């Protein structure tokens, strides 16, 4: 599906979505509460059919987190990105998309482990890489560890 058509389709579903097109992807930024709804819509609509979440990641912008979902359709071979902002750094929380794309399960466990973002309704949210007694979230910008990290 063309980017312009996709943009119109998403705007008709969520009129307040922010849409930016770059060289590669169509980037759609939505409110935190709408991310699950949008994910489900993009997967189930026949014209879009985004059936493959090829990357789910989090970015720390120091004052907020951004969840980034890279989507692909194995049927139409088109791609897009959906994003959502998490402003609460103390108790960051977002809806899980595990029930839409099962592959999100491990991505979300990794994000939970390294950023401390919690996912509502995730079936098995526990640490994946770090030791079970690890304290802190190493990929956060404000993470400090004077013992193990040599700063430069």
């Amino acid at each position, binding site marked *: 599906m063309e980017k312009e058509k996709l943009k119109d389709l998403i705007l008709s579903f969520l009129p307040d979505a922010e849409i930016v097109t770059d060289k590669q992807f169509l980037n759609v930024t939505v409110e935190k509460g709408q991310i699950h709804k949008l994910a489900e819509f993009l997967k189930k609509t026949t014209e879009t059919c985004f059936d493959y979440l090829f990357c789910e990641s989090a970015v720390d912008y120091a004052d907020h987190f951004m969840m980034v979902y890279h989507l692909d359709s194995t049927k139409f071979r088109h791609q897009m990105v959906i994003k959502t902002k998490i402003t609460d750094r103390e108790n960051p929380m977002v809806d899980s998309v595990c029930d839409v794309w099962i592959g999100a399960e491990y991505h979300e466990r990794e994000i939970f482990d390294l950023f401390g973002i919690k996912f509502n309704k995730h079936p098995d949210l526990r640490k994946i890489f770090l030791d079970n007694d690890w304290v802190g979230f190493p990929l956060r910008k404000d993470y400090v560890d004077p013992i193990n*990290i*040599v700063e430069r």
Partner: protein
Amino acid sequence: MKEEDFKDNETLELFKKEGGNVLLSTVDALINWGRSNSIWPLTFATSCCGIEMMAAGASRHDFARFGIEVYRASPRQADVIVVAGTITNKMAPVLKRLYDQMADPKYVIAMGACAISGGPFFYNSYHVIKGVDHVIPVDVYIPGCPPRPEALLYGVMQLQRKIKLDTIGKKKKSSVDI
């Protein structure tokens, strides 16, 4: 490689010449000849250095020519562990266990920048052991990122040279205190 060709590192030979060790008996000479010419490495590689190690073992470089004969999949059968790659905090206990499971005499080669010092992960990293010698005692360090197979061959030949100066009278220290 002939011993005269190693002119850059004579510490061990000089140490021996000065009487720093027990006399090398004929038995020692025989045992060391056998040990140094049949070093079996453990199949253990954690990153790109492992690819170079495989290249060194494959037909082009073929380090079986020097007696580093066959990769063993069990630490019980291995003589040398080539630490080829980054050792993370989570991998360190596994490496220590592998080393402990190897039968004496056992040798360690730290291959590449990551195994020597943490390499590119030295600064600003929370998860990498900064030098594998924090975990297990190292016999030979091979610098490079990753070292070429020739460098590994050179390192292994240095190890063989080291083994040849060993003696059965001395007990080899097999572990370090962390």
